[in-house]
Every structure is written in C-alpha cells, then in structure tokens.
C-alpha cells in the first residue's frame, strides 16, 4: 500500500481545519498507516505549525524555503515533485489553493487526479472507490480511480468530520534540502483584501442570512428589520452578491467569508455546499425555505417550509413583541 500524504494549508501560524479532515480521509483509505503531513513555508511560525501536527500525523515533513513564504502553487508543486515518493497518494483540500495546485501536480508526478471528493468507499484492488457530485450537486457519482501509479486527491472541505485520533508519537523531518532552487514563471505580487464594508459578519454571533429566495433587492429590508430586532447582522449567499443586492463583504461561503456564529438563520437559501463551506463551528441553524427538498434542510437543526417573504415579517413582529414585553 502506497504512502498517504496530506498537504497542510496554514495561514498566519494557524493550521486550517482541512488538516484534521484529511486525517479522517487517510484513515478511510487505509486505517493501518498514519498519514504524513507536508508543510511548506518559511519563517518563524513554520516550526510551530509542524509541531501542532505531531499528534495527528505519523510524520511531518517540513519544507522551509524562502520562495515558499507565500503559498504559490507553481512553486509548491516543484517542491512536492522533489520530495514525494513515486506512486504516493496525496490529499489536498479542494479549495482555492488545491484547485490551483493539484491538476498540474498530478501530471508532473504522473499520477491520477480526482477532484472535490466527498466520500471514500475504499480500495478495490488497484483502484480506490470514491464519491463525487456532478451537475451542481444535483446528483452523486461513484468513481473508481486507478491508484497503481499513485493519486492526487482533492477533498471537499467540510465533507469529512475530523475524527478523534489516538495520540501518536511522531517526528518532524526537514526535507528542505531535497528541494532545489525554485523558479516559477508565475510570481505572487500582492493580495487585495476585500473591502471591509460597513458590517463585519465574522464578528457577529447571530446572522440572518439571505439567499435567492428573497426574490428581489427591495426585500432585503425584511431581513434587515429582523436583524435589527435581534441585534444581529445580515449576511448572504453568493447569488445575492452576483445580483448586486448586497456587498461582497456580506457573502458567506468558500469564495466569501468564513463565519462562526452561534445561531444562523438561513432564509431562502438552498444550501449549496459552497455556501455551507463558509459556516464553521457548528452553529444552530434554522432554515426557512419554500422548497421542502432544499438541501439546506439536510444540514439545518430546525426547518420551516414557508415563504420567507411572509415568515420574516411575522418573526420580526414576534421578536419585537416578545422583547418589548421583556423590556417592560
């Protein structure tokens, strides 16, 4: 059985949640061998990142190279090509970085590539059987991947629950010297941070979040009234931003903000995974949607099948009424 590696995404000294999710994936592929974590980067925080992975990974391979101080997929690829043993299985989160890195990497290491995996069935001979989705998540598919020459597997963030791993004693190996000079014909210049906007939704513990189900821009006011009554903030899904009903700073999702509220009211949101990917920390999710089959009801704690345009004013009145009573 080939070795399993996880590429670790980290920012500002903190390891991304995906690292823990990838250990769960590795266990599903082969529970007998603890996976190896690969950490690339540069600077003071790198060692701390490596140490924090020791309890969940069998080995941690550190690649420290100044060129990798910003995770440039072209350069990371070169580094990985240098250090990955042949026919390895590499797990990468299917996020903005993984989409950038993995397809090209799979060609350079001459392995198969499977993107956006959300389920692992297991190994059948030379193949790994996994689960993906197609057509915007409307159908699922079983996929068989030939792993005889290894595989790069992109894993959907949030699809696998991190498991409680028994503590393992492991070691950090410094593989930096195995990587030669890194040059790329793509150079990172800067990051333009999204405009802060008037409201920072990541700081609110209660969010009234709206989706397409609000029908049109003027109805956003209904959500704002409810938010005001609750002392909450209004956030939204991507289609709302695309339709220019709200600013990008309000978007929750894989291409928007990541939020960790206590309570999340999903109003007229269908529950596409890109949106759900932005919700962390398992908040209490209340979903209101006209469509009883909306995927949001799979992940919500409480669901109401109703027209959000009718329900929200009712809820706002109720909140005002009940809070008014309490204030007296």
């Amino acid at each position, binding site marked *: 059985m080939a070795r399993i590696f996880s590429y670790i995404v980290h920012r500002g000294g903190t390891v991304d949640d995906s690292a823990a999710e990838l250990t769960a994936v590795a266990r599903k592929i082969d529970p007998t061998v603890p996976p190896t974590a690969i950490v690339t980067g540069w600077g003071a925080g790198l060692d701390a990142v490596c140490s924090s992975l020791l309890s969940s990974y069998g080995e941690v391979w550190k690649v420290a190279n100044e060129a990798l101080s910003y995770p440039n997929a072209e350069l990371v690829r070169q580094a990985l090509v240098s250090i990955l043993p042949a026919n390895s299985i590499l797990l990468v989160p299917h996020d903005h970085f993984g989409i950038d890195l993995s397809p090209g990497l799979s060609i350079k290491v001459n392995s198969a590539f499977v993107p956006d995996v959300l389920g692992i069935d297991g190994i059948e001979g030379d193949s790994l059987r996994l689960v993906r989705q197609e057509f915007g998540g409307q159908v699922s598919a079983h996929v068989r991947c030939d792993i005889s020459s290894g595989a790069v597997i992109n894993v959907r963030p949030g699809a696998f629950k991190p498991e409680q791993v028994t503590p393992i004693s492991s070691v950090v190996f410094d593989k930096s010297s195995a990587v030669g000079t890194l040059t790329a014909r793509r150079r990172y210049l800067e990051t333009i941070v999204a405009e802060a906007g008037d409201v920072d939704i990541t700081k609110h513990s209660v969010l009234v979040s709206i989706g397409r189900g609000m029908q*049109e*821009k*003027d109805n956003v006011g209904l959500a704002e009234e409810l938010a005001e009554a609750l002392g909450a903030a209004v956030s939204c899904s991507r289609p709302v931003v695309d339709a*220019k009903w709200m600013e990008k700073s309000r978007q929750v999702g894989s291409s928007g903000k990541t939020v960790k509220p206590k309570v999340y009211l999903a109003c007229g949101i269908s529950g596409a995974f890109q949106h759900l990917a932005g919700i962390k920390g398992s908040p209490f999710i209340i979903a209101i949607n006209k469509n009883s089959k909306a995927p949001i009801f799979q992940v919500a704690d409480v669901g109401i099948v109703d027209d959000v*345009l009718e329900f929200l004013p009712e809820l706002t009145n109720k909140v005002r009424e009940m809070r008014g009573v309490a204030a007296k």
Partner: protein
Amino acid sequence: MVGIYSPSLSSEWLVPGRNLFLTIHVLGIACFAYIVAKRLVPLVRAESDPRFDRPLTRLGKVFKFWLGQWKHPRYRFAGALHILIFTGFLLLATRAFSVLIVGVSSGFVMPGLSGESGRVYDLITDYAATIVFLCMVVAAFRRLVFKPARYAVPAKYGKSRTGDAVFLLGLIAVLMVADSLFAASSAAGHARQDQPVEALAILSLPWMLKIAIGSMPLATLWVLNITAYLVHEVTFYFLLCYRPFGIQFHVETSLFSIYFSKLERGTLKPVRWDVPDEHLDQVKSFGVKTFEDFTWKHILDFYSCADCGRCADNCPANAVGRPLAPRFLTIKARDYGFHHYPVLGKANNGKPLIGGIYSEDEIWSCTTCGACEEECPLLVEYIDKIVDLRRGMIDDGNVPQSLQKPLKALENRGNPYGKMEKKKADWAKAEEFRQTSKVKTLDGNNSAGTLYFVDSITSYDDRMQSIGRSTSRILGHLGEDFGILGAAEKDSGHEVRRFGEEMLFMALRDHNTNAIKASGVKRIVTSDPHAYNALKHDYKDVPPVEHISQVIARKVRAGSIQFSRVENEDKVYAYHDPCYLGRHNQIYDEPRAVLDAIPGLKRVEMKRSRDRSFCCGGGGLMLFYEPKEEQRMGVLRVRMAAEAGANVIVTACPFCMVNIEDAIKVAGLEGKMSAIDLTELVDQHLIREVCTEKTDELETATCGG
C-alpha cells in the same frame, strides 16, 4: 405725397417700396425653401416607411387631430389656449397673405374676399388677431410666472427653453400688433383723407389702436403705417425662416406628422418595411444604431415635437425617476439632426446614438405602455423608435445580463423561467382543481372550438396559476368547449419582440402559429392582455382572439350570467386598466361592466383611468430587468388606489397582478390594500348549481348559466 396709400407705392426707402417688399418676399421665400430643403436631407437618407396608403383614413385623422385639435383639451388650460391660437392662425392665414401681397401690388384684394364677404372676413380676423395677441400675453405670463412643471428642463438634458419660447411668443405678438397697427393706421389715415374707411371690429386690437392714434397728424400715421407694414413683413419672414430651427417647426410639419401617422394601434413596425421576413438574413444590421437608421417619418416626428412635455408628464418611467423621458428622446434626436445636418455647412454622419445622445438604460427603461403616444397632440410615435433602438443593441450583443438569462431560457425552453415544456400544463393538474374541472389539451386526441391561450406567467408562476384556474372554471361555467395547447404552447413572444429580439420572436410566433393551426380551433380566448395583443397584432393567420373580460361582458349584456352578492361590505374596488387591454386595445368598458354586474360591488375610479391609466411596471421581460429608479411604478399606482378610496385593486392582467401585489408590500399597505384578478373575482361570484353527481370520473360542472 402725403397721405395713406398702398405700401407698394411708398418711396421712403432707398428703393421704391414695391421693389423693397418684393425683394423681401423673394429673399424670405428663397431662404425658407433652402432651409426646408436642408431639413429634408436626412429624411431622404433615412429608411423607407410606407405611409401613403389609405388616404381617406389619413385625411380623417387630419380632420380630427389637426383641424379638430382632438388631443389638446386633455390639458384644459393649455389646450384652450392652443385651440384659440390655432384657430386664429388658420383664420388669419388668408389675411396675412393679402397683407403681404399688398406691398407689391397696390389695391390687391384676395379673390372671393371683395365686397361684403371681405368686410366680414376682416371683422372676424380683427378679433382673431386680438385673441391671438391676448393668448400670447397669457402664454408668456404662464411660462414666466406659473412655470408649469412639465416645461422644466432637468440639468442633464440642457438649458431651459423658456427664453426661446417667450421670444417666439413675443414675435407672434409683434406680428399681431404690426398687422393691427397697419390696419388701424390705414383706417385712421383714410378717415383723415375723407376716403372710405375700413370698418374695424369693435373692441378689437386694430380698433383700439385706431382710437389711440386717430388724432395723430397724417404724416405720422403714414410713418406708422409703412413701419407697421415693414415690421409685419420682416417679422413674418423671420418667423417663417426661424421656425424650422426649433419647436415652432411644428406649425409647418404638424399637418404632415398627423397625416402620415400610424393607423393601427398595438402594432410594431417590421425590422425593415422594404424587406420581407424571409429575406431578413440578408440585412446587415438590425435596428437603429445611427440617426439615418430611423425612418423618414421618425425624423419628421423629431421635427414636429412642440416640446410641450405632455408625454413626459404621463410617462411612468419618468415619474419614478428612470433615466427616460419621451420628450427628451425626441428633442435630443432633433438637436442631433440639426447639428449633423446643418442648414449651413456639410451634413456629416455622426456618432452612434447609444452611448452618444442616448444611454442604454434610457432605452431599456420603457415599458411600452403607450401613455406618451396617447397624449401627444402631434401624434409623435415612440414605441417603434424604442423597439428599433433595442433591436440595434441586441444586434450588437449589448444586452444587460439580467435580460440575457430569460432570453436564453426563452430560446431553449420557450418560456423566460427556463422551466420544462412538459410542466406547462401542471397548473391544470392542481389537486383541488382537478376534482371539479377538466382542462383538455388539444394534442390530436382532443379538439375544441376555442383555444385558451394561457402564456408563460399564468402557466408557471405559482400565484398566477390561480388566474388560469379561474378562467378555466369561468369558461366551463359558460359552457365553452375549450382546450389548451399545453407543452406545445410557447411564450407568445410579445415582450421578446418589444425588447428587440425579432428573430427569437419570429421563432416563437411561427411555432405557436403552427400549433394553433394544427389544433383546428376557430377562436382564441386569453386572460393575458400581452398575449391578447400579440395574437391580435403581431401574429398573422390565427383565428380571432378575445380577452376573457370581453367574453364575460357579452354574457352580462345578454343577461345570461348571474353573480352572487358581494359579502364584505367594507370592500371598495378600483379597476386598474392594464396598458395592453386598455390603452393599446381600447377595452375599457367590458371589464367595468362585468364588475358592475356583481350585486353590491362598490367601485371607484382612480384619477388616472382608461386611456390615462398608469402603468403598473410592465410585463414579460420587464419583470427581469433591473432598472435604476427612485421608486416603483406599482407603488405609485397603489397609492393612487388608496387616494381614490379603494382597498381592493382589480386587475385583468397577470403582470399587473405581480407588480401590484409586490407594490402593496413595498408600500407597507399590507392589510389595508389587496389585489385580485378580474377572473378570480368573477370565479368567486359565479352561481353554480352543481347538478351532475360526482362519479369516479372527473366531470365538469356544466350547468348554472
């Protein structure tokens, strides 16, 4: 020679009077002819437009709208003023010519106006000149002091035109005074010389002037006389040559703009009048992109605009702050024409119109409600121009993203929602409805005499499906043998066409026409005024079409339908005329007759009703467009209903229903105002005697009216 004699004999000038005045005639006429010829240049270069048919009908319109000033009283005070001025001008025309010719031919008298008839004519025209003069004073005062809102020019459209307007009013006043002074001084002079004195109408301007100057020495009278004459002639020709540079050109062009005006309501011009549908592929460019792409009649319209602002005053897009005002659409084009086809200088082909004098949003903002065309006293046409400009934008691929999605869905699925064809008739399969009503699909297994053309929104929209069900129940109740096309029915394409996608429209039209013909129906009924208008005017070779309100109204007239009494005494109903039922097709009375036939129904009229009805916001593709506006048309309309004392708005169009129900929420009037479709209301009040027993098979209740 001292005394009063014909100006042609005057010798106070450097040249003999006759020569002077003849020269002025020649110069004035030549100048005018030259200016008009230059003004005609863009018309010659413009697209063709067949407006020479049906001369008798056209003459009829000239009688009604030009001579009869039919539209003017819609604004009572200004209308009255204009009717007086117009009548005065007509009456004074002959007198003016006489006066002019007298300068070159002493003793000239207009044939037919010698003797008694001449004297009567002179008396009448004395009053005419007086009234015109007074109207000029009143009009100028109105402009300068009262400043009616519709004359205002917002900064983005340019400078105020009040100065120019008052200048012209002043010149006409001068013309009247000059004419009157000429007559007064002639009469006063003749009196002095013991010659026959022309009678002047009592209390007219010439009469009063004569009293004022009567005691002046003869020499002074003579000076006044020839001065007045010269002023008259110069002013006359100045006005003649100045008019084609501004809105006063309508004095000359109005006769033509009205004669050549569109004869059919609700229709649209084809892409090119001189290119039949089958050859459209050969046309290089669709629609209006440059000034020359307009037809000659459209350019004539630009010349004919009197800048009165009545169109913009009634335009719902303008009222809600969209970047569109019909008046400026015309004036900007006129100014463009004046600038690029100058009287002095070379004509030049200028910039494209969209992105130049027009913005894209300006042209997409129009709901094609027709209020502007209904109001314009010069019968200037707007909808064809807007559609042509849209055709041009579509041809260039310049379409807002919000419209691209429904257009693509219409192309792929035959409806703007992108829903599947097989679900088109699902509205008729709703559980409760199925128990009592069966709606036939005319698919070869079934046939019927009447087709109920449902169209997209009524078929697919959860709320509007109720209109489909109510209409079916009504038709069943009336014993009509009807069916629907079901999956074979595509969108009527009414808005597709009016948004400029002519090819997609033709595909939809041809598909539907074939389906309708294949069904073998003899008659079509619809509950959707947009579908009604399309089937009536945009489609050819389909059976005659009626709106459901007409069908019900006929039964009401015949006394063969009874309604139950209104239960809730508190309800006050206001009927909102849908643009495509009312204004475009003039069906105002039938829906009202239906409502009035419901016992106990209290109905009020909104201030703007019938042909002055205020658009709800538009239908079809307009529901997908995201306009820049300060508020919604629907909200204004709902407030009008509230002002009229109503708490229920009755509509007869599914798009009106969408906009009105939405507006009730946005305006915060939920609970105080509601909306209901005519068919739903009628359905509620039908008195059914269910005499068929329900068996295991679904049966339609057939008796009861």
